[in-house]
């Protein structure tokens, strides 16, 4: 064998030697593209505040990610774009008038505590954006549940509260429902013409984004369908059994359900890996969300964040319970 110069050396690696070209950063970029319609809707309805909160969260998330990796002496992971996704999703879960510093605090908790303490992307058991939101909800309950009329540029009634909040307050006080849902109102709720967290209001924009994710095969249909399906079923049953129940479309289009089912409960890292596990996960989220909305008389009108976080905790168990049998496995 003749001696070889380094120019003659070849790459020797384990098979396969071909790759589909898929990458984590491409998946994250697709999620960001899918969030563009919801961001546009947020800008339309909340104006400058939507841009302010999104920019604050994304910047704070990126900075926290960079600092944490630096402190842990690990490689820089900014380019996988997952911190950007967390920032945008957290911002979308904030009310428009929230002070910037609170948004920054939530972002730091999301990245530094919920994500990097576990080792970064792939190791976090809970959805970082939702941990950030839950942190703010508990520590800044007032600002997180206050809906100022000035921050909202939409028309029509319901300015100082979210529709879901109004209904919950009425139910808690034992009063009749504050309004009956007209066709006009349903349409407004669908396109997002109501008060709420900046990214959650427009079901139409969210559905557009999720259609893109499904088309790009970034996510599968299992979680959104199971989640929304369970919520709808629950709402239908409630409608038939209780006089004080709101219509199905009200539950579907208000609050964080649509954003949660399409973008938060479809986070790959914190949800099961098997298809059957994803269905189970979606059903669990749907049930818990509706229980929080209609049964629990807590401080919050909404239960999507906590429903998903609780189901996140069940993910390892669901994975274990839905373990696949290989092709040709001996039938039990």
């Amino acid at each position: 064998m003749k001696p070889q110069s380094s120019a003659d050396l070849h790459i020797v690696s384990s098979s396969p030697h071909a790759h589909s070209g898929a990458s984590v950063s491409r998946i994250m970029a697709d999620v960001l593209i899918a969030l563009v319609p919801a961001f546009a809707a947020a800008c339309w309805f909340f104006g400058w505040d939507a841009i302010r909160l999104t920019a604050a969260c994304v910047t704070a998330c990126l900075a926290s990610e960079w600092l944490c990796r630096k402190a842990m002496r690990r490689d820089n992971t900014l380019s996988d774009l997952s911190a950007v996704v967390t920032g945008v999703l957290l911002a979308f879960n904030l009310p428009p008038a929230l002070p910037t510093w609170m948004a920054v605090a939530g972002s730091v908790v999301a990245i530094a505590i919920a994500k990097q303490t576990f080792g970064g992307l792939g190791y976090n058991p809970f959805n970082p954006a939702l941990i950030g939101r839950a942190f703010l909800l508990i520590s800044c309950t007032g600002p997180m549940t206050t809906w100022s009329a000035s921050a909202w540029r939409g028309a029509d009634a319901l300015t100082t509260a979210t529709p879901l909040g109004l209904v919950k307050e009425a139910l808690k006080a034992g009063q009749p429902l504050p309004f009956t849902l007209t066709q006009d109102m349903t349409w407004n709720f669908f396109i997002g013409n109501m008060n709420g967290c900046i990214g959650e209001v427009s079901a139409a924009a969210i559905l557009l984004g999720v259609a893109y994710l499904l088309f790009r095969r970034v996510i599968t249909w299992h979680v959104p369908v199971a989640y929304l399906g369970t919520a709808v079923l629950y709402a239908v049953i409630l409608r038939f059994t209780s006089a004080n129940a709101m219509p199905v479309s009200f539950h579907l289009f208000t609050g964080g359900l649509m954003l949660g089912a399409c973008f938060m409960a479809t986070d790959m890292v914190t949800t099961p890996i098997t298809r059957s596990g994803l269905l189970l996960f979606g059903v669990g989220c749907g049930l818990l969300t509706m229980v929080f909305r209609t049964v629990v008389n807590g401080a919050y009108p909404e239960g999507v964040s906590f429903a998903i976080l609780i189901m996140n905790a069940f993910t390892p168990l669901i994975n274990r319970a839905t373990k696949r049998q290989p092709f040709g496995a001996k039938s039990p």
Partner: protein
Amino acid sequence: MKPIRAPYCFSGGIHPVYSKDLTRSAPIQTLPCPPQLVIALSQHLGAPAVAIVKAGDSVSGGQRLADPAGVISAPIHAPTSGKILRIEPAPTPLGRPVPAIILEPDGHDTWDSPLTPMPDWSRLDRKSLAGQVGAAGVVGMGGAGFPTQVKLSPPADKPIDTLIINGAECEPYLTGDHRLMLERAEALWQGAAIIRYILGAKTVHIAIEDNKPDAIQALESARTLEDAAVCILKTSYPQGSEKQQIYSVTGRVVRTGGLPMDVGCVVENVGTTLAVWDAVVNGRPLVSRTITVSGDAVAAPANFLALIGTPFAALVDACGGARGRIAKIISGGPMMGFAQASLDVAMSKTSSGLLLLSASRVPGFTSQPCIACGRCLDACPMGLMPAELSQCIEADDIDAAEHLFVMDCFECGSCAFVCPAHRPLVQHMRRAKAIILARRRAAIKK
């Protein structure tokens, strides 16, 4: 029977870029004998053959150079006449150096095969035909190199009713089997008839993916056998895998740890079938095979009929050399082939392809943590959970990997192909399998 569409299809699988256009229409050329042949003593699954010649011996073509060592082994023959220079360890495509016979051809190609041709095979008994196949050193030429005689001698309690000739050739780039089906359709059907006769099987299927319509056509027009049909498979990697193909063609499921004969099937590769035909009808031992030389770093990609032991460098020279800088050399296909450190390696009975890829086809990646996207679960044709497996193996929890059926992995590479985090999933599986096998061997010794 007219060509039939495969009634089933395995679940999972992927659709890589096939790049078969490079050599699809390149007829098989006979490669001139190279100045030196390096004939490894281990070219098959099982015990290495034992050399029966020594340095300085003159041998004729077809002469037996090495005897099989045990039942799962195969003899090795001289591809041409010449002189044995020496017997020494030489690198093999699988990476591990093994003893090899270095033969210097004399250029006369005098032939003296120890095998008697059996053109009237249908009047002979099955056992002597299987013996002839074994004596010819025929092994599975699709990649595994399992001695064919063993496959053709199933125990009496495992009757075989279906023979499947595997013409899927699902690996990207490779077109050798495709060309054989086009150019040697009649011999292929005859080879199938011989194998069916040896097995006492009823039905023959030649399974071909639907991306080779010309091969389907050629085999259909050459078909004279009764109870035989071309079976058209959906193009999907890995259709060429034995268990997956049996399911696609017959709907039968080979159980975990089981063999095709458990469900009455035998699968033989196209090249192997032709080698059986050659051995039985012409009395010619397995001393050459078709090999696709392709890739974007080859000047003129081609299909060759080359002698076993031909150095890879000679194959590349015959293609007009390399084009640009070679980043990666692969023996076999890009999905399951073996990367080579240099071209200073000789082809064996299982070398189906030689690929030279430029840096643009060999992107460097850093592996990232699993994001649990589940794409590997969708891709795995064995229904395994590669994501979970690789995490167990990374944590050195080999027992957990065994419980997650890591031994069922046949390293097709579909999981690693789709993984967005570029995790070395196949490498993890290999490591776990090797550890488990070593443990089992140690347990047997005790």
